[in-house]
């Protein structure tokens, strides 16, 4: 009897599966039943890829899973993060120091994964700060920002931080040229006084430490986006530029006059030779490098005052200009390193230059004049082909590793797929709307993982529930495994998803940090057991050395604090198991909270302004008795005689 029921159930299950199967793949637009199964990651299962989407003007990086589009984490990079205390805690404040003082925000555009032999190695993620030129390095074991270096002699650090084949350098340049060194001049003296720079920031092979290796002075155009070469073009880096008109006002009209602007091809190996030959000049420049000391769990700043500068006039053969139609924006190098595709945002074609033709043209001196000593190569001697009818406003190209390029077209809101070699468009798909960058996992490396392209859209009007005047920006996941691209999923993003990178989950997962080992915690303010907890007064400075564990703080009653004191809470989380952070906040704290990972010590400064009793508590739901994890601080009037006391 029971067996019969089981058999009936099994039969029902088979019929059900057949029905489901037949529902799928009808191909009509608006039928996403097939798409749903392709992005469905069952509860408890993992995504195939980690995706790192920049937050643009949020100044952060957000971590998502693909294909599900589920968001896992927001990483504080250039913006303070009150949730974790990043940029608020005493240990992390130094990370946001610059030569202009403490800056709590920036505009973060291009996440860029470290590479070895042109392939993703899963060690670091770099990202640029656009507004106050900086480059950050995120450690992919902890998913935390561990270094930020300022780039001096720069305005608008947009073409950054693209990585050379073995992460020898991350590159940068000036979108906004400036007087170098900066000085008080009339803006209308642009043509005589303004100069651009191209920067090469070296990355230490072992530690990842960033160093501004050298800068190259270049004519005062707007250098927009960059890509280093790979394979046989390794050793070169390509920077697009617009405003070869050198306009200093109303650029939308005045910088759109010339038929062609330039891609600057920089031979950085040659630059290294010139430095060895002593051709570089040392220039005064103040710039910060902030780094996180993993042992001390504390960020420190160092101020650098010198930079090596090369002038192309002294360094023949170091830079060439490739004429490129109409204010090119993107410049992308295919996986073989041979083809350099430009996104001429006002152009009617996608010009694709050939690296070997470029080398030949240089050898044959096929020049069409020069700009300040930088030879201009003849367009027809370097061009490999032009992709016609690429949509309006082509911007960026990524590659699938199977011989196709995918280019985003901002104005016509679409992705066009074209074949390398024949340059014909083979497919196109609308995006919703105004796509900027697009991203194929590994699509900028020698070994693209393919499978998906992600559209990063600026506008989502009518795509989601309205949320007042400001609407979410979005990403769209598109299947590229077949001949036709197929939209699978829309997902909203935090901030502006300007650009992104994705990497197979298995490369990162195995290295993911779980705890900070207490034995290795060398934070000078750490307390390793409740026995060591204490409150110490030194003048008007109070230091509370506190521990947190489920479900209490030690000490949890503190007296003898006075109005006008500076109270530093040094809180150590004594837990040693994964995923047990504790939070800390006190009433009236004019600051972010602390979110302290297992085995970590963090410090927050509180300056009490009123007399009375002030509760503090754990803000991260840590245990069944989380509500009990609290305490009181007594604040007495300035000048009172209440002695410091606390319980243990």
């Amino acid at each position, binding site marked *: 009897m029971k067996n019969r029921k089981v058999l009936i*159930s099994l039969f029902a299950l088979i019929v059900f599966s057949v029905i489901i199967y037949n529902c799928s793949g009808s191909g009509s637009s608006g039928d996403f039943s097939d798409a749903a199964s392709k992005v469905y990651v069952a509860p408890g299962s993992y995504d195939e890829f980690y995706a790192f989407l920049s937050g643009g003007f949020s100044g952060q990086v957000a971590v998502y899973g693909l294909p599900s589009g589920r968001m896992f984490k927001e990483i504080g990079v250039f913006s303070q993060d009150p949730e974790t205390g990043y940029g608020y805690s005493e240990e992390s404040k130094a990370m946001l120091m610059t030569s202009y003082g403490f800056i709590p925000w920036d505009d973060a555009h291009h996440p860029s994964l470290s590479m070895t032999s042109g392939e993703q190695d899963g060690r670091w993620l770099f990202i640029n700060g656009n507004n106050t030129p900086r480059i950050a390095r995120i450690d992919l074991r902890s998913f935390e920002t561990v270094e930020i270096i300022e780039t001096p002699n720069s305005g608008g650090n947009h073409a950054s931080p693209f990585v050379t084949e073995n992460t020898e350098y991350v590159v940068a340049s000036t979108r906004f040229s400036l007087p170098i060194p900066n000085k008080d001049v009339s803006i209308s003296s642009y043509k005589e006084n303004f100069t651009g720079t191209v920067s090469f920031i070296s990355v230490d092979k072992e530690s990842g430490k960033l160093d501004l290796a050298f800068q190259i002075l270049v004519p005062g155009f707007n250098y927009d986006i960059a890509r280093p070469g790979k394979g046989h073009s390794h050793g070169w880096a390509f920077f697009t530029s617009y405003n070869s008109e050198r306009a200093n006002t109303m650029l939308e009209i005045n910088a759109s006059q010339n038929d062609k602007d330039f891609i600057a091809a920089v031979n950085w190996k040659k630059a290294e030779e010139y430095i060895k030959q002593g051709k570089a000049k040392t220039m005064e420049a103040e710039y910060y490098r902030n780094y996180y000391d993993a042992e001390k769990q504390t960020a420190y700043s160092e101020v650098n005052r010198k930079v090596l500068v090369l002038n192309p006039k002294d360094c023949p053969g170091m830079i060439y200009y490739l004429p490129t139609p109409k204010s090119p924006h993107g410049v992308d190098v295919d996986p073989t390193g041979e083809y350099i595709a430009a996104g001429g945002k006002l152009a009617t074609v996608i010009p694709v230059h050939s690296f070997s033709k470029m080398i030949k043209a240089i050898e044959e001196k096929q020049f069409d004049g020069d700009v300040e000593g930088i030879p201009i190569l003849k367009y027809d001697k370097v061009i490999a082909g032009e992709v016609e009818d690429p949509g309006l406003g082509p911007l960026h190209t990524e590659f699938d590793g199977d011989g196709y390029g995918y280019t985003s077209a901002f104005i016509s809101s679409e992705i066009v797929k074209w074949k390398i070699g024949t340059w014909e468009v083979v497919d196109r798909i609308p995006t919703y709307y105004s796509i900027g960058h697009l991203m194929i996992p590994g699509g900028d490396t020698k070994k693209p993982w393919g499978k998906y392209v992600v559209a990063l859209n600026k506008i989502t009007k009518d795509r989601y529930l309205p949320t007042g005047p400001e609407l979410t920006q979005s990403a769209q996941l598109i299947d590229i495994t077949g001949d036709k691209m197929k939209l699978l999923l829309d997902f909203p993003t935090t901030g502006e998803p300007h650009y992104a990178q994705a990497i197979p989950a298995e490369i990162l997962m195995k290295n993911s940090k779980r705890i900070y080992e207490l034995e290795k915690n060398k934070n000078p303010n750490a307390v390793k*057991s409740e026995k060591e907890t204490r409150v110490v007064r030194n003048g008007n400075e109070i230091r509370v050395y506190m521990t947190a564990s489920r479900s209490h703080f030690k000490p949890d009653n503190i007296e003898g604090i006075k109005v006008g004191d500076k109270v530093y809470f040094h809180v150590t989380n004594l*837990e040693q198991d994964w995923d047990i952070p504790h939070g800390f906040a006190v009433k009236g704290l004019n600051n972010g909270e602390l979110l302290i990972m297992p085995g970590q010590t963090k410090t927050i400064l509180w300056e009490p302004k009123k007399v009375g009793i002030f509760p503090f508590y754990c803000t991260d739901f840590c245990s069944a008795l989380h509500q009990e994890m609290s305490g009181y601080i007594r604040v007495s009037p300035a000048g009172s005689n209440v002695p410091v006391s606390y319980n243990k």
Partner: protein
Amino acid sequence: MKKHFLVFLIIVAVSACGENKKEASSASSGTEKLAQKFGLTVFEYENGIGPIKEKLELGQIDLIKAKSGEKIFTEKCTQCHKLDERYTGPALRDVTTRRTPEFILNQILNPEEMTKRHPEVKKLLATYPTQMTYQNVSLDDAKAILDYFRSVNK
């Protein structure tokens, strides 16, 4: 439909358990029956679940080890455990009387699985509602803590 599927699963599960069942059906003593009831072996029931899978030869208390055990205990355990006072977790002065040495080691090294599967530890979670965690100690560290517990149980 759901119900049928459940029945099906139970049948599969039960038939997969066949071997254990046979072994256990020959059990006669009370402990064996209890262990069987909770899906544990007799060793697991008496000595806990974890990396310690057989009885250990314990010699004299090593006082040097006990001393280092006290240091580890102070740094990694005292936020939850005191010797003579109920705290986040139970008082531990007499823990070597209440539990076998192997049970103590397994509880230190594998607390989450112990809480999920061992009836005695399940009871503890009902009394002390904070899940004990693995505090990133090695087997040697745990053995030192055990010697410390032995040295203080007078």
